[in-house]
């Protein structure tokens, strides 16, 4: 349950309490010896400005993906209007959690790749499967140089044969695909909700239902993930192409909070 980006790629340590809320930069055993920026060139890095969970799943018309617009600096909500969903070509969307500067570097690489591909003018373009393959090679290559790009990334879209595509790649180069995927805290909190709402009904869920499911999950995450925001964007990829919504404000109600029992001194 240690989902904090600073802990990714580190040996699991059962001795620490993963549920505790230490300041993000000073997690026990993870703190740098000196200021991150004083070492000159650093190979093994740690994420600085981070984005939290990405959620995505299959639905009738294609792929839906969501991310909030927050980029945190430790526990500080530093940038509140960062877009973490990035369109690539005509039928792919890439969403990233983890280090935002590494993600923006990847965005530039992907944009350059798209331009190179376009200038070839050979009638081919890169679909989601190709983008994912490219990203997984970059991520695995960087981890093998012990200089990872500190992200967990989702790639979603429609392949040129009309099939849906949704896959994951992270800082270790680990990849997989599934009908419902989430990164970070979402893998623990949203995946159970998504699997029960989506699995087996991928071909039935309409766009309206998909947005509803996504909004519910983002709301639950906002309630429980301290590094999240109540402003998020939804991307869809259908035969019509990529659509990334304007930021949506979550409607929340905290009335339930007073009924929560069982924490700290409140036992009854």
């Amino acid at each position, binding site marked *: 349950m240690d989902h904090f980006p600073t802990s990714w790629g580190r040996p699991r340590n059962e001795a620490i309490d993963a549920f505790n809320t230490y300041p993000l930069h000073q997690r026990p055993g993870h703190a740098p010896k000196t200021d991150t920026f004083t070492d000159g060139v650093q190979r093994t890095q740690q994420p600085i400005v981070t984005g939290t969970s990405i959620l995505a799943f299959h639905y009738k018309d294609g792929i839906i993906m969501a991310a909030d617009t927050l980029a945190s600096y430790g526990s500080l909500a530093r940038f509140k209007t960062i877009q973490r969903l990035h369109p690539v070509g005509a039928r792919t969307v890439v969403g990233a959690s983890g280090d935002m500067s590494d993600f923006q570097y990847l965005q530039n690489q992907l944009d350059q790749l798209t331009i190179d591909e376009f200038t070839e003018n050979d009638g081919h373009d890169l679909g989601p499967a190709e983008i994912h393959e490219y990203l997984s090679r970059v991520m695995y290559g960087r*981890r093998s140089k012990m200089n990872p790009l500190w992200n967990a990334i989702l790639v979603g879209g429609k392949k040129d044969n009309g099939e849906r595509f949704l896959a994951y790649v992270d800082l270790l180069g680990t990849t997989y695909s599934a009908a419902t995927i989430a990164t970070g805290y979402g893998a623990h909190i949203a995946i159970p909700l998504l699997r029960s709402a989506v699995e087996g009904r991928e071909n039935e869920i309409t766009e309206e239902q998909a947005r509803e499911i996504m909004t519910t999950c983002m709301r639950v995450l906002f309630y429980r993930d301290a590094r999240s925001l109540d402003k998020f964007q939804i991307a869809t990829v259908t035969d019509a192409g990529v659509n990334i919504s304007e930021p949506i404000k979550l409607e929340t109600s905290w009335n339930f909070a007073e009924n929560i029992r069982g924490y700290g001194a409140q036992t009854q």
Partner: protein
Amino acid sequence: MPDGSFAQQPQQRQFNPYTENGGTILAIAGADFTVIAGDTRQSEGYSIQTRYAPKVFRLTDRAVLAVNGFAADGNMFVKKVKQRLEWYRHAHAKDMPLRAIARLIQTMLYAQRFFPYYVYNILGGIEEDGSGAVYSFDPVGSYEREACRAAGAAQALVQPFLDNQIYFKNQMAAAGQSHPLHLPLSDVLAIVIDSFTSATERHIEVGDGLEMYVVLAKGRSSQGLDGLRGAQEISTTNDGDRVFVIRRELKKD
């Protein structure tokens, strides 16, 4: 620390380029066939990442490779083995023989001796003499030919069961008789399925789906395989050794 202090302990901060992705693989050689199997769950820690991530791959019509351990390394390793086999095909206009693939894999693994692929490999298929064969490897390339081998998360659960059921260890043959050197395909498939249902029952990282590849020696009748539920032929030719894949569901909890 629970009291909010964390300054005093020794500070260890290193990127760990490895993880474990669970799952189990298994291969059993018959007289003129080999079964290579693996579950399809991929996990990290207590999270199931996906219920379908194949760990068993057809290399040629006579060779199947199962990889288990760190999934990213596994996929990359399979990719590179397949590339080397394609180059061989282009250079020699034939598929590489099984024992040569085995040596190739050892060389490729040992090449990474000081930054290993964190992967346990089991190679199964048909030798040039038509016999079923299993080669098993450790992450840095030590290998041997065997009749059966389990590896991965549930190796400790499955291997002693195989010793008992395949090698007849601790069993006495009936008077005047000896144990068979090789079992028929139907028996082997039953043992493989039992092994995986048992491992699924007792190991949290095993489950979801089972993929069993069967490699049949050239000219061997596919008796029973065609009619088998969920069996599908994936050979590229029908005048050489043949490859089938059989898929089964495993418990998903």
